[in-house]
């Protein structure tokens, strides 16, 4: 009765008002501590310095809990950060978080993973397409297996849409072989703890080590565990890992890992920071919510020394693409 809803206002920056570089504070917020995100810290800081931004911070305290991540984000906002590059802990919820922030006038980018579904409420999404990355990893594994045999997929938290996409990617690659490769098992939920991953790998190898020709892993701890377990057991299984943590790269170098699919965290942080700052300076996205692939690279012993150049090239390419195609200033 006589009660009406007030129109939402905005808090800081944005909304037509523009900021100068020295007023821009960017926060890069991964879902939790993970080796994958470590390059963000330096790449973001470097880009910030280059652009003369007031501050670029890296905050990994979200602890893989969406509620905590939301907390961290609002705390950062309260501290005066006005642009956020976020890896959402739970892709199915993250659009709400984005909306909250953009409604208050902050600029938000979805980095390293896009929200689940077709919608993206962030200004843009700059990420590896996890399904494509998993698909490529599976392809690499199939290739290493010689195009036929039995494949096993090891991955993380099952009730996470990224995992679902990874499973779909692997399944797609397998189905493309027309039955020559069989996906005999998908093991999930072994990324919590390195020991669980090692145990799962040991059990798997004990149960069907002889029947397995390839293992594709799409999560960190299983990748480390699989590389080690296979080497230890001395089985002729081809392991395809994920990312380029030193332990995995050394595996590729010495041959215990057939290949690894690396992504482009440096590019995500660098280009993400750049684009966010431009948005605060008054640019707009030509196509809000656009999803941009940050690239994924199959690394084998052949290109282990050079894949990083390939990756830098991709980053530069992304940078120009944002300047020319995605942003309108």
């Amino acid at each position: 009765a006589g009660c009406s809803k007030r129109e939402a206002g905005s808090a800081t920056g944005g909304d037509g008002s523009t900021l100068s570089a020295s007023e821009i504070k960017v926060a890069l917020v991964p879902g939790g501590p993970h080796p994958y995100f470590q390059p963000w810290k330096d790449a973001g800081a470097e880009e910030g310095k280059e652009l003369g931004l007031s501050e670029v911070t890296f905050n990994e305290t979200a602890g893989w809990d969406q509620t905590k991540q939301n907390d961290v984000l609002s705390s950062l906002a309260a501290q005066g950060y006005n642009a956020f590059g976020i890896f959402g802990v739970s892709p199915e919820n993250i659009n709400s978080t984005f909306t909250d922030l953009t409604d208050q006038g902050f600029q938000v980018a979805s980095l390293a993973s896009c929200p689940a579904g077709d919608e993206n409420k962030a200004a843009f999404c700059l990420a590896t397409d996890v399904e494509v990355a998993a698909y490529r990893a599976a392809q690499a594994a199939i290739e290493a297996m010689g195009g036929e045999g039995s494949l096993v997929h090891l991955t993380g938290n099952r009730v996470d849409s990224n995992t679902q996409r990874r499973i779909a990617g692997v399944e797609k690659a397998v189905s493309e072989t027309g039955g020559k490769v069989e996906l005999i098992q998908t093991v999930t939920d072994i990324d919590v703890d390195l020991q669980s991953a090692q145990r799962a790998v040991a059990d798997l190898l004990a149960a069907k080590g002889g029947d397995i020709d390839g293992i594709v892993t799409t999560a960190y701890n299983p990748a480390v565990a699989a590389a080690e377990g296979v080497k230890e057991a001395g089985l002729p299984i081809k392991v395809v890992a994920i990312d380029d943590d030193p332990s995995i790269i050394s595996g590729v170098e010495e041959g215990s890992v057939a290949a690894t699919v690396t992504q482009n965290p440096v590019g995500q942080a660098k280009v993400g920071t750049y684009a966010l700052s431009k948005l605060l300076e008054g640019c707009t996205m030509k196509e809000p919510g656009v999803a941009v692939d940050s690239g994924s690279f199959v690394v084998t012993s052949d290109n282990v020394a050079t894949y990083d150049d390939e990756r830098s090239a991709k980053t530069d390419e992304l940078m120009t693409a944002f300047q020319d195609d995605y942003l309108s200033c």
Partner: protein
Amino acid sequence: MPWWANPRVGLVVVIAVLVLGFSSARPAFLDVELTLVPLQRDIAVFAVVGLAQLAALSLGHMNLAVGRMAALAAFSAGLCYDRFGAPLVVGLVVALVVGALVGALAGGIITATGVNSFVVTLALDFGLLGVVALLYDRFAGGVAFSVRPPGLDALRSDTFSDYCAGSVCGPPVPLLVPFALVALLAVGLFFGRTRQGREILMTGSSPRAARASGIPVGRRIVTAHALSGLLAGLAGFMLATANGAFSASIGESFLLPSFLAPVLGGTLLAGGAVSAFGTVLGATLTSVIQKGLNLLQFEADALQIFIGVVLVVALSLDRIRQVLAERRGVRP
């Protein structure tokens, strides 16, 4: 009993000191939109989670499946919205009913078999994990529902200050907070005033004496667990609302906070004594610590270290009050 001997007062003081400390170190702590509103939302959710555990603790039992009960309840609400286009409140009611039914199932198994509640709810937790995954797979084609009923977004992000009668607007309190308040009052009244609630507490403090005093122990166990499930369902609904989607990951991080809030608030693990209000204070204390330390922007490792240290130090301060009370010969 002097007012300061009440254990709840100690918590209030500790919280006040922390708020003072944090807000003087980081004035942003008092930012309404960015700190206080989200903080209230967190407290509301975790207070309800704590109350859900409190219902089981009242018996001296545990409910290790709180999180998964919440997930199942949130699934049912999501299903109603997605498949049947149900209005917001219908989903809420369904979530509560499903939660209560699963809780009653846990209680029923415990009474029927006499197996320790820890084991039963642990097993149930595993079982529900599988069920929830299968259900989302079957009905949501993945791990979340995307449909949102009208009103959900308002419930999620609005505060009463967004609603005005003329020029008078409400306080900056999120719309979710009243849910927790209702739960608090209901639980407080239930354990403090109703026959059923009191009988549950008596059962908690001595099942044998309860049986010999004519209390239908089995039925009370089922009731308490059903209440636990119902509140878990409410928490699941609230978290899904707060986070914006009905997804399988709801409740994953409920387990430890669910114990922390009531135990901090003075509820005994052994059963027989509960404090609903204390649970809210416990949830407030943990949320305030988390929020304050977030604002201080520690690195991930330092943050965890400080959370632990602040918790112990804060509670030790409260101990001094307790020791004083004991020295004065006040019974707690």
